């Protein structure tokens, strides 16, 4: 009965604000916003957008970044998992990489920038000793016009995300027996995995890959910190237009937001074509009967790239941590000349209120999202059919439609409703972004659950609810807490919704961090990056600890 409410509730709570917000942006994109003097539908904003200098280049950079980031991070994850799952090295890397999911994108980007910039830590390590540089070389590494640094910054952050998503899905597959069969037929580790396990695995993480494409093609903070500047990516430019005090720019920004939607959509379409090509390629090799037994170099490459990606983020964060206690730290010194706790002493007393808001909003939004997701999934089981494609796309709208495309309209909704900035509104706004991630993390594992367990439970005389509570939910504990941790991390990382819906009155650790980061002070960024990281990391610790604790006596439930 209760489950019946799940899907409609989810649709009203999620799709309602998004659709309203989307139309609130679409109308200005078509020239209609009476409050700013636009009373007629016209294509003027679209023409304005087409005449905007360099718009083509910004668009292409966004498109390329979306596809390249997804392709590279997926390739690294696939290569590593195929080559190493079930080994000791795998477990070690897993412990290294998983916590990185909780690192905020902006913090990772700052860390990366400080590692690889000409005045960064890597250059300092070899200067002036090996290079003879007493001043940093004038090299364009960060902000390069091709966006390579930005793609690198996105890749190192998306790898942990895809890796964790894959792990959750991996638990639903019969990895060890399949491997044994492939090996007994003479296939190398990687080939055996790609031929036998990758297709069902990929099916489960496919939406996560779409989310990566959508995110990478519309990201703002990473693109600002690492991306090209002349011109910046589309998303960065349309946020600039949105913030322009010249209010007629709102029309241009809205049109740009629609272009962003199209860019993200095209990136995903191209990806779908690439998927087909990849599958065809794989099948050809499989049919040809190649065994690829000598895959040691490829395996080492997988391990190497995975370690490099994790290593550079960890080193970057270490460098930021050092900055948070640094006094003067000029080039080419490898260590700060003096150490002071000033930044910490200044920050800690001021962080209490934003911290409380972050925790309350994050926890409540995550719990609601988990609850709704489970209701929807139960309903799905009861009716025996998944929501139509339309319903699924509605649910994933927040991941695929760039935030700016509907947040302005959403802001109007809250103001028009007479609501002041309050906690429930903020929780609802976060829920819009938390819910899809929770659903994405949980649904595939849920659907892949072996229904014969339900049959066994019924056979033993358990009611449906008891079977759910005593069998299914416990068996899915790992997937559920992981989904919760992902949801909480997403909530902690929300910037635009918090700023717009919280109207600056409800601040979180992230909004404070971005405001201070605009001052470019690495010391303060170091402190906040640390705080921003600790919260979600605590969530993931819980996500790891709970299943370990619950299943300590169940050998088959370990990965």
């Amino acid at each position, binding site marked *: 009965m209760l489950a019946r409410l799940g899907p409609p509730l989810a649709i009203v709570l999620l799709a309602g604000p998004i659709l309203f917000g989307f139309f609130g942006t679409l109308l200005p994109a078509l020239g209609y916003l009476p*409050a*700013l003097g636009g009373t007629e539908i016209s294509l003027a904003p679209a023409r304005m957008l087409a005449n905007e*200098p*360099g718009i083509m*280049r910004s668009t292409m950079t966004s498109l390329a970044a979306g596809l390249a980031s997804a392709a590279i991070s997926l390739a690294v994850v696939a290569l590593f998992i195929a080559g190493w799952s079930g080994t000791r090295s795998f477990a070690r890397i897993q412990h290294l990489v998983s916590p990185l999911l909780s690192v905020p994108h902006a913090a990772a980007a700052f860390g990366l920038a400080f590692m690889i910039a000409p*005045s960064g830590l890597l250059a300092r390590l070899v200067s002036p000793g090996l290079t003879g540089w007493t*001043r*940093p070389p*004038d090299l*364009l590494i960060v*902000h*390069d*016009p091709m966006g390579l640094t930005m793609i690198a910054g996105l890749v190192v952050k998306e790898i942990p995300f895809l890796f964790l998503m894959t792990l959750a899905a991996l638990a639903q597959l019969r990895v060890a027996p399949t491997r044994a069969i492939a090996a007994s037929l003479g296939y190398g580790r990687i080939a055996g995995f790609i031929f036998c396990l990758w297709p069902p695995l990929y099916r489960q993480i496919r939406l996560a890959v779409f989310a990566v494409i959508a995110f990478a093609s519309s990201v703002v903070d990473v693109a*600002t910190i690492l991306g*090209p*500047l*002349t*011109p910046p990516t589309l998303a960065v430019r349309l946020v*600039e237009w949105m*913030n*322009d*005090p*010249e*209010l007629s720019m709102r029309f241009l920004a809205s049109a740009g937001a629609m272009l962003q939607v199209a860019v993200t959509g095209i990136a995903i379409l191209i990806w779908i074509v690439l998927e087909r090509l990849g599958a065809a390629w794989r099948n050809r090799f499989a049919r040809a009967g190649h065994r690829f037994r000598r895959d040691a170099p490829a395996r080492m490459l997988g391990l190497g790239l995975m370690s490099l990606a994790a290593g550079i983020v960890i080193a970057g964060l270490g460098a930021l941590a050092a900055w948070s206690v*640094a*006094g*003067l*730290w*000029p*080039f*080419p010194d490898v260590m700060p000349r*003096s150490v*002071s706790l*000033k930044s910490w002493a*200044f920050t800690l007393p*001021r962080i209490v209120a934003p911290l409380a808001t972050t925790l309350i909003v994050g926890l409540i939004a995550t719990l609601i999202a988990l609850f709704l997701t489970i209701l929807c999934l139960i309903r799905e089981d009861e009716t025996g059919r998944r929501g139509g494609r339309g319903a699924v796309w509605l649910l994933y709208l927040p991941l695929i439609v760039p935030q700016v495309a509907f947040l*302005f309209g959403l*802001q*109007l909704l809250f*103001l*028009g409703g*007479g609501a*002041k*900035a309050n906690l429930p509104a903020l929780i609802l706004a976060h829920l819009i972004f938390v819910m899809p991630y929770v659903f994405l993390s949980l649904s595939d594992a849920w659907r892949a659950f072996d229904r014969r367990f339900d049959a066994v439970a019924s056979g033993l005389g358990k009611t449906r609810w008891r079977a759910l509570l005593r069998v299914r939910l416990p068996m899915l504990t790992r997937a559920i807490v992981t989904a919760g941790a992902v949801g909480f991390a997403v909530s902690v990382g929300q910037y635009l919704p918090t700023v717009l819906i919280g*109207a*600056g*009155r409800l*601040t979180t650790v992230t*909004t*404070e961090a*971005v*405001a*201070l*980061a*605009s*001052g*470019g*002070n690495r*010391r*303060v960024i170091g402190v906040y990056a640390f705080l921003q990281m600790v919260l979600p990391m605590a969530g993931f610790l819980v996500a790891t600890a709970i299943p370990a604790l619950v299943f300590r006596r169940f050998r088959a439930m370990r990965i």
Partner: protein
Amino acid sequence: MIRTIVAALALGALVNATSAGEPDPRDWDAVLADARGETVYFNAWGGSQNINAYIEWAGAEIERRFGIELVQVKLDDTANAVAKVVAEKAAGKDEGGSVDLIWINGENFAAMKRQDLLMTPGWAEDLPNWQYVDVENKPTVRTDFTVPVEGLESPWGMAKLVFFYDEARTDPADLPSDAQSLLEWARANPGRFSYPQPPDFIGSSFLKQVLVELVEDRSVLQEPVDEATFDAVTAPLFAYLDELHPAMWRSGRAYPQNYPAMKQMLADNEVDIIFAFNPAEASSAIENGELPDTVRSFTFPAGTLANTHFLAIPYNAASKAGALVTANFLLSPEAQARKQDPKVWGDPTVLAPGKLEPADRRRFTALDLGVATLAPDELGPALDEPHPSWMERLEGEWKRRYGVGN
């Protein structure tokens, strides 16, 4: 049902009552009484810790003295606060808005004034502390980028374009003394100078500084842009930039995001000359361990841009009385002197020391402006800001020429 209607009517009456009672700064006691218990949401750029700390101090004082709670809404761009008021106007929220006080000047002020988003009638010159403001020697407190202020915003601090360099690396004898010699210096030291990418406020100000120096007739800049002559007027500026960019940091293919980023670049030894709008910026940074203590300031003898930054109240602010009291407190000799202390912030005062009581005057003379700060008489002449429309057009033209890569 009837009860609901009665309640609605009562509520309506209440709303009317409050809107009829717009605070009038000429009746200051009433304003103070009105303000007690209010919460003022002060929308101010939050990118600098020492400024945030200063606002926190002011908040504590205002709470103690006037019973007003001051909450700083930390922005990364002032335009966001303007955008918020616009969104509220679009939603018909003409009362009880979420922004009570904005730290503002220039194009943001011009935009808000043009669209009637500010509290009227003009109130700033009726504040009790207005009597100390240096209207005679600081004309920019009444004219914000050529736009008449008309009391719609209250002056808060003075800004002047000042350059910084590290004595340990750069010989003071080689320093440029105007835009032209800056170009020669950059050619002699390739890759060692940059400016924040317009439309960053400081970056755009650099463009204006060069334009004001190179333009044939400065008076045209005081008028709104005339499209017919725009190309001719700005030709010297863009010819200058065409020559400067290849000699700049990263050959002009990348730019720092803002002036704090330039400060970091000076510390990282990526560039040798940076600039800011606050003469005490370097002293303050030395104090905080962000820059080495060998950093010093210089300006151009023929003058650099100067302007004033202000506090404005939106037309739909929820706590107008509280905002007035806050603006008045921030204008007080006590608050202004503290603000000018480089250990606190280092932002120059808008007040005239000569108009102050002797005790208050001593607050200013007692300040140690820091080793890297030029004395007020060393800052050189002040150049007038062009009309805000110039900034907008220059930014657009800059983006068209340099902002899209080729």
